[in-house]
C-alpha cells in the first residue's frame, strides 16, 4: 500500500508541477484548430491531427506546407524532421523508465511531448531516489494538464475557425507562432547560431521548387548548432518546456 500511495502522490505532484504549461498547450491547441479549420480541414481531420500526432509544431508545419501545395513527401519529411528532437527525449527517459512494463512504456511514448518530458526529466535529475513506480506516476501526472487540454483546445479552436470569417489573414499566425516557440529556445550561442544559419540557408535555397530547400537548410543548421556546441564544450540544457 505504501508504494501505491507514494506513486499516487507522485502523480498528483506531477500534475501540479506541469500545471502552468496548461497556458502553452491551451492557446497553441486552439491556434492549430483555428488554422487547420480555416485551411479547409473538416472537424474529424483537425481532431485526427491533434489526437494521433500530439505535436503542435509539426502539425502546424504540415498545415503550412499543405497550404503551399508542397508534395506530400516534403510535407511528411519536414513535419517528421521537426519531431526528431523527441528521439532525444526518448533516449533520456530510457534510463529512468526503461525498466517499466512494455505497455506502460508504450503509453509514456504516446504522451512524451515537450512539456511532459521537460517537467519529468528535471524532476528525475533533482530527485534520483524516486522509485520506478513514483517516476511513472509523476510522468503520468504531468500529462494531466497538458494532453487533454491540447485535445480539448484543438476542438474549441476548430469550432472558432468555423465562425471566423475566411478573408482574415489568419495563416500568418503560423509563422508568428513558430518564431514565438523558437525565441525562448535560444538558450545558448549554439542555438542562436543554428537559428541564424537556418534563416540564411532558407534564403539561399529559396529558389528551389516544392519547398525542397527546407531539408538542406534544416540539416545544415543542425550541423552548425552541433558544431558550435562541440567547439564551445556546451553542456546539455533541458528545454524550458515553452517550445511546443
Amino acid at each position: 500500500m505504501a508504494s501505491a500511495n507514494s506513486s499516487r502522490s507522485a502523480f498528483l505532484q506531477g500534475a501540479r508541477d506541469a500545471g502552468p504549461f496548461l497556458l502553452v498547450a491551451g492557446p497553441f491547441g486552439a491556434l492549430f484548430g483555428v488554422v487547420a479549420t480555416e485551411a479547409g480541414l473538416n472537424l474529424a481531420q483537425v481532431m485526427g491531427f491533434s489526437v494521433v500526432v500530439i505535436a503542435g509544431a509539426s502539425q502546424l508545419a504540415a498545415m503550412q506546407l499543405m497550404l503551399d501545395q508542397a508534395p506530400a513527401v516534403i510535407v511528411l519529411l519536414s513535419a517528421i524532421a521537426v519531431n526528431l528532437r523527441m528521439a532525444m527525449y526518448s533516449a533520456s527517459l530510457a534510463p529512468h523508465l526503461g525498466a517499466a512494463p512494455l505497455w506502460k512504456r508504450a503509453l509514456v511514448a504516446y504522451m512524451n511531448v515537450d512539456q511532459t518530458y521537460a517537467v519529468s526529466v528535471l524532476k528525475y535529475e533533482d530527485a534520483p531516489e524516486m522509485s520506478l513506480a513514483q517516476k511513472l506516476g509523476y510522468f503520468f501526472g504531468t500529462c494531466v494538464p497538458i494532453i487533454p487540454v491540447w485535445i480539448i483546445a484543438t476542438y474549441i479552436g476548430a469550432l472558432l475557425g468555423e465562425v471566423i470569417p475566411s478573408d482574415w489573414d489568419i495563416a500568418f499566425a503560423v509563422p508568428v507562432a513558430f518564431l514565438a516557440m523558437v525565441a525562448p529556445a535560444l538558450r545558448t550561442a549554439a542555438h542562436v547560431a543554428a537559428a541564424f544559419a537556418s534563416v540564411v540557408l532558407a534564403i539561399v535555397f529559396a529558389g528551389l521548387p516544392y519547398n525542397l530547400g527546407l531539408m538542406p537548410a534544416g540539416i545544415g543548421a543542425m550541423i552548425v548548432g552541433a558544431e558550435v556546441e562541440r567547439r564551445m564544450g556546451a553542456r546539455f540544457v533541458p528545454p524550458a518546456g515553452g517550445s511546443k
Partner: protein
Amino acid sequence: MTGWTGAEIWLIIVALGVATYAIRFSFLGLIGNRELPDWLLRHLRYTPVAILPALVTPGVLWPAGSDGSLSLPHIASALVALGVGYWRKSAVLAAICGVLAFVGLNALA
C-alpha cells in the same frame, strides 16, 4: 482544402502520427537503458531551432499576398514575436504580441 483529397489528408495524418510515435517510442521502447552516441544527441538537440526558422523565412520575407516584395507588417510582426519571446522567455506572450503587431500594422497601412 484545395489540392488535397480527404484520403490524402488522412494519409498524412496517419503517416505523421506513426512516424512521430516511432520516434517517441524508439529508445524508451526498444533499446531500454542504452544511451545514444553523443554526436547524434548533439545534432538532434538543434532540430527545432534549425528547422522552424527555415520553414517561416520565405513566408515572412515574400508573403503570398505581396507579389514577392518585402512587406513591413510581416517582417515587423515576425521580429516582435522573436524579440518578445527571447526577452520574456514566453512563447504564448510572444505569439500574442506578434499577432497584435500584425493586426495593428495592417490596420495602419
